């Protein structure tokens, strides 16, 4: 189709054409970046934790006043929890993936190293920990019963003279031993030697503190109730029942305690990401609103143009133009405007992305988002102009013979 007549018509409506181009450009730029932000958030929300999420429930209690023998009470609690019908395995842990509160430590290949090799999140588990949490050992072995210590004793210096057995995840193994033989190595946490006895496939860090979302290490240390969280593994269908049973059992052991947290791990995870989820909802809403406003703008402007040019259309029809040709005229016009808008919009999208990268430590937007935005706006433009264009095509040739 010859686009010269279209261009010469547009030249007579420079301002209006420029405005619609600008609108399309801005919409394109904002939508590209918003979609990119949405994908970033979704990636964050859907990070794997590395534990048996839908089979776990958690309870944290705390005592009143200073606890003189918290560890003994913790042992009683664990025994009572293990005896619960429906509880497949029970452990006490110091922290969880996707929960606010994390313990972190730097580890080094050599003791005399000036800067540590990496920073890991430090998990501490009691007996049966790996099985309870559903962590997946890919090399080496689990901790042996004799290797578990009380966290209080560890803090007071127990076991400081010998290497502590640790299990690391594959992310840490790759960082510490790029050649792949981390198993059996001795590493250092300050002056404390660590002996790698096992490797699990994956274990997310609690908060992503210090930009570390995946590097985790596990030590065989029992946290006492208060700071520790009781974890119970059960059938997904029996979680409520087991949670209720656990609360009753803990109440029986010591009625003088406060229940600080009691929920399924799935709820814990949902709670942690609720802000991100809300942001995704907001971004998507704004994108939809932008596209709708732009589409209505195109409809409005095209309708005006069709009304304004109805006489001209009638003349063309009278001179032999088919309905299809009139329809295509308006579709092509819209395509041209959208294309100019999209080109400008992509430049703007890139600029906005650069600004966001500076402000929010966002990665560079993959170029794939640009064609997505382009196609979206082309389709939007065509859909929006179709109605007015069809009305234009329906203008009877007789209009040409009438006065105004």
């Amino acid at each position, binding site marked *: 189709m010859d686009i010269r007549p279209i261009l010469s018509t547009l030249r007579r409506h420079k*301002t209006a054409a420029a*405005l619609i181009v600008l609108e399309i450009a801005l919409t394109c730029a*904002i939508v590209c970046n918003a979609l990119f932000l949405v994908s970033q958030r979704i990636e964050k929300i859907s990070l794997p934790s590395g534990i048996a999420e839908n089979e776990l429930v958690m309870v944290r209690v705390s005592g009143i*006043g200073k606890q003189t023998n918290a560890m003994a009470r913790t042992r009683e609690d664990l025994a009572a929890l293990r005896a619960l019908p429906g509880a497949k395995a029970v452990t006490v842990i110091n922290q969880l993936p996707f929960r606010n509160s994390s313990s972190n430590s730097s580890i080094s290949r050599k003791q005399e190293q000036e800067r540590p090799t990496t920073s890991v999140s430090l998990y501490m588990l009691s007996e049966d920990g790996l099985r309870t949490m559903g962590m997946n050992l890919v090399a080496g072995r689990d901790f042996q019963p004799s290797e578990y210590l009380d966290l209080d004793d560890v803090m007071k210096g127990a076991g400081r003279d010998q290497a502590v057995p640790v299990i690391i995840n594959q992310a840490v193994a790759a960082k510490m031993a790029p050649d792949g033989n981390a198993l059996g190595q001795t590493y250092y946490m300050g002056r404390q030697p660590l002996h790698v006895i096992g490797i699990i496939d994956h274990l997310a860090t609690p908060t992503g503190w210090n930009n570390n979302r995946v590097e985790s290490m596990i030590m065989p240390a029992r946290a006492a109730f208060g700071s520790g969280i009781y974890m119970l593994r059960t059938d997904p269908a029996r979680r409520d029942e087991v949670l209720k049973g656990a609360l009753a059992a803990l109440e029986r052991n010591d009625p003088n305690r406060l229940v600080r947290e009691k929920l399924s791990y799935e709820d814990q995870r949902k709670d942690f990401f609720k802000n991100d989820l809300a942001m995704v909802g907001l971004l998507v809403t704004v994108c939809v609103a*932008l596209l709708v406003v732009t589409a209505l*703008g195109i409809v409005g402007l095209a309708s*005006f143009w069709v009304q304004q040019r109805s006489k001209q259309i009638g003349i063309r029809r009278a001179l032999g133009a088919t309905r299809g040709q009139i329809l295509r005229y308006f579709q092509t016009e819209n395509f041209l405007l959208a294309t100019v808008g999209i080109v400008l919009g992509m430049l703007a999208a890139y600029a906005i992305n650069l600004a966001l990268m500076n402000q929010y430590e966002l990665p560079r937007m993959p170029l794939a988002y640009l064609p997505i935005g382009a196609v979206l706006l082309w389709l939007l433009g065509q859909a929006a102009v179709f109605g007015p264009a069809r009305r234009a095509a329906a203008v009877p040739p007789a209009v040409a013979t009438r006065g105004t």
Partner: protein
Amino acid sequence: MLAYYARLAIRSFRRNKVLTALMVVAIALGIGASMTTLTVFHVLSGDPIPGKSDRLFYVQVDPRPRSGYVAGEEPETQLTRFDAETLLRGRHAERQAMMSGGAATIEPENANLKPFSVDTRWTSADFFPMFEVPMQYGRPWTREDDEGRARVAVISRMLNDKLFNGADSVGRELHVNGHVLRIVGVLRDWKPQPSFFDLTLGSFGRDEDIIAPISTALELELGSNGNMNCFGENPNDDSYAVNAPCAWIQYWAEMDPSKADEYRQYLVNYSNQQREGGRFERPANVRLRNVMDWLDFNGAVPSDVRLQMWLALGFLVVCLINTVGLLLAKFLRRSGEIGVRRALGASRGQIFLQCLVEAGAVGVVGGLLGLVLAALGLYAVRQQPVEYATLAHLDGSMLLLALGMTLLASLAAGFLPAWRAMQVTPAIQLKSQ
């Protein structure tokens, strides 16, 4: 004349009901979204202690060991107990306070109430005059109480309502973690937002119900909440010990802003002394930031909120461009009519005014509707699971801004179309009729 233009505008709207509605809704959506996010931003970036924020300074020194030292790096965020206590004894500023967040379990005397846990603040006596903490009953404790580790506490109005039904509880006892504290004061409602004096526990939404001397809290081993960063070898394994290499205390000093440089030098001298004494290993690295700088440095306004604001403003611009385009097309389509009016003697100014009235009406109606949407939007924000949710309210200054924005939006939307409309040449229009 204006009334006549208004009648013309209404007639014009009637002719294009759908289109007029579209323009109004677009402006309303834009204004509504922008006002919602701007209000949230305004609330979160506000000065928590107006009139005093330039007199209060957050103090940082760097007690960390030599290893891992990077020149030009920020010093440790908080102070160790040793440094905080030494600086506090030095009393070099007009007022100074050390503090940390904490938590405690209260056992009410009233047997109907079960024991419950509250957030607390452990601090020193100057905290109250420094941060202008308002008292309902009684008075704060004194510096002597700090030194004597007095078993005293100031409680919040909410806690006082819960435990003592709002009566004057000064002199009554408070059972905290198995210890007894004597109530010396009750606060009036006091909740600076953001809670600038301690940003380690989240900037918004935390209620602290007990304020007690930090010396007492340390003696009774009541613990702390917040960040604690330990470095180096700990001689006796107690992170709260005087000599523990653990930074967990926030330290504020009040002084005239003109004295800040001198105080900074005092901190440098202190660091050098500590280095000579062997406690510090790094070159002196100190910071002294006033309240607004400290908030800014810590990014107290969540980055999501900034992002939302820019997103909404972008949305508003698109909505305005949309309206400008539609108005322009609408006016120019009436070129014939305008040509006739010009030929009959209307001046360009009159055409301009007529179009502006029509555009302005769209803008004003859209803006007012936008305010309603903003109120709805803020209601939606308050339902969100975010810690600043309860703060999202329109205040006077935001209402003024909203009205200004509405006016500006309508003028911006109307100006260009009206300008173009008044330049319609009557002769050509009349000929083409």
